[in-house]
Structure formats: structure tokens, C-alpha cells
């Protein structure tokens, strides 16, 4: 927290150190929600720039890493809005997951299902079921009401389960 305060008071080294410490977690987050390495790299860079510009507005109500994730989410939502061609975006972002020799792991199918979902449905599913953020946080970051978050997650999870050929009835 001291590092954050120093960064807010104009200590450029402290700010650079904070960004370096959180760089990978932001990038990993963006890779999981965008499923596109190049886009994730660009958005991570933009997130860092936005954080530098707005460091004075960070109020310490959440962890610094969570604050960065919220910025990254806003930027990705802006990107999707700008695109307005989500289908094309999904077709272009080809997943090439590294797998070991042998049979294809089960999760590969699920990743393909997740990749096929519209990004604004897949993102809340990932945020809730992988990162464990609350509906309220997700709604705030995505600029949508909590109820919409719940219904998107419900629909997303239903589509994922359906895609798994009903082999997961217990969930």
C-alpha cells in the first residue's frame, strides 16, 4: 500500500514497480477473456497507460490488481463496442493451445465452446467461475446491470454444458 501511496505522490519508480508486479496477471487475464494473444498484449499495454494516467483516482477500495483488472475489462468492452463486428473478431482470433502428445484433453472441447460464445457472454462466465468476482463487480466493469450479468452467465453456462453433450448433469 505504501508503494501505491508513493506512486500517487509522483514517485515514478514506485509506479513502474507496481505495474511490473501486476503486468503478468493483467496479461494472463486478458488472454483468458480475449483468447487472442496479440490483442491481449495490446490491451495490457493500454491498461498500463490508463493506470498511469489515473493513478490519482485509485482509492484503495479494492486490491491494486483488481483495479487494473477493472481497467482492462473496460478497455476490452470499449474494443468490442468499437468493433461492432464481434463475429468477425471471433473468427479472426484463432486459439492455438499447446497440448502434450496423446489424446486431446477434455477441456479442449470446453475451450472451443467458450471460444464460440459471444465475448460479452464468455467474459462474465470467466470472471465469475474462474476468477470468482461478484456479480456486482462484473456488472460495474462491463457497464451492465447485475441482473443482465446473471442471465448472461446462466445462458453461457447452459451453452457450455449443452456443448459437453450432457456429460455434466451434476453441476
Amino acid at each position, binding site marked *: 500500500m505504501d508503494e501505491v501511496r508513493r506512486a500517487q505522490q509522483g514517485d515514478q519508480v514506485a509506479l513502474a514497480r507496481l505495474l511490473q508486479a501486476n503486468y503478468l496477471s493483467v496479461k494472463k487475464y486478458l488472454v483468458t477473456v480475449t483468447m487472442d494473444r496479440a490483442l491481449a498484449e495490446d490491451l495490457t499495454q493500454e491498461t498500463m497507460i490508463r493506470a498511469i494516467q489515473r493513478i490519482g483516482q485509485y482509492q484503495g477500495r479494492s486490491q491494486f490488481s483488481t483495479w487494473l483488472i477493472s481497467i482492462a475489462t473496460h478497455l476490452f468492452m470499449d474494443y468490442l463496442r468499437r468493433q461492432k463486428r464481434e463475429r468477425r473478431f471471433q473468427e479472426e482470433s484463432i486459439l492455438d493451445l499447446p497440448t502434450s502428445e496423446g489424446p486431446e484433453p477434455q477441456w479442449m472441447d470446453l475451450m472451443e465452446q467458450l471460444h464460440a460464445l459471444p465475448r460479452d457472454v464468455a467474459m462474465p462466465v470467466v470472471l465469475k*467461475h474462474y476468477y470468482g468476482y461478484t456479480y456486482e463487480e462484473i456488472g460495474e466493469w462491463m457497464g451492465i446491470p447485475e441482473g443482465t450479468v446473471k442471465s448472461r452467465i446462466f445462458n453461457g453456462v447452459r451453452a457450455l454444458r449443452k456443448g459437453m453433450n450432457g456429460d455434466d448433469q451434476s453441476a
Partner: protein
Amino acid sequence: MTNQHNDAAPWEEQLRQGLDTLADLGAEEPPNLADLQMLVVQVQREQRQQLLRDLSLFWLCGLTVLAVVFYLISRSPAYFVAIQGLALVGLAATGAGFLRSRKRVTE
């Protein structure tokens, strides 16, 4: 960030495994400290320049308006009064239009 791994349903377990693998794609080395420090310096410099530009523009507009007002008062008060009157009429018309449209909506 807190991953929810306890008591995960099978599909959630698969989601976790898949996303863990995916996240590892982004797990390269972070940029070195010197590069990030340069980025901080550059972004903050641009921010200061932008602020200076905006403030200069604001002052320029303000001074121009004041200059015109003082000129009109000192040289041709009639024009000044006319402009003030027109501004008042315009304001009243806008207000009346707004009230009328609001009334129509509530009816």
C-alpha cells in the same frame, strides 16, 4: 484474484484446466523496470502537455469573450444590450420548449 477451485463441478474443473493452460500463454517475462519507468515518464509528460493545452485554450476563449464584452460596453452599448436581450430571449425559448416537451411526455 481468487480462483474458485474448491468443490468445482466437472465442467468448472475443465474450465479451470483450459483457462490455466490459456493463461500460461500470457506468462512471458514482464517488461523490465527501466522500460516501464520510461513509459511512466512519457505518459505523464504527455498528460501535462495536454493539460497545458486545455488550460491555454480555456483562458484564450475566456479572454476573447471578455474582450468582446468590454469592447461592446465601451464602444456600442446598444449592441451589448441587444446581444444580452437576444441571449435572454433564446434562453427563455429553450426553457419553454423543454417544459412543453416534458409535459407532453408525462401526459
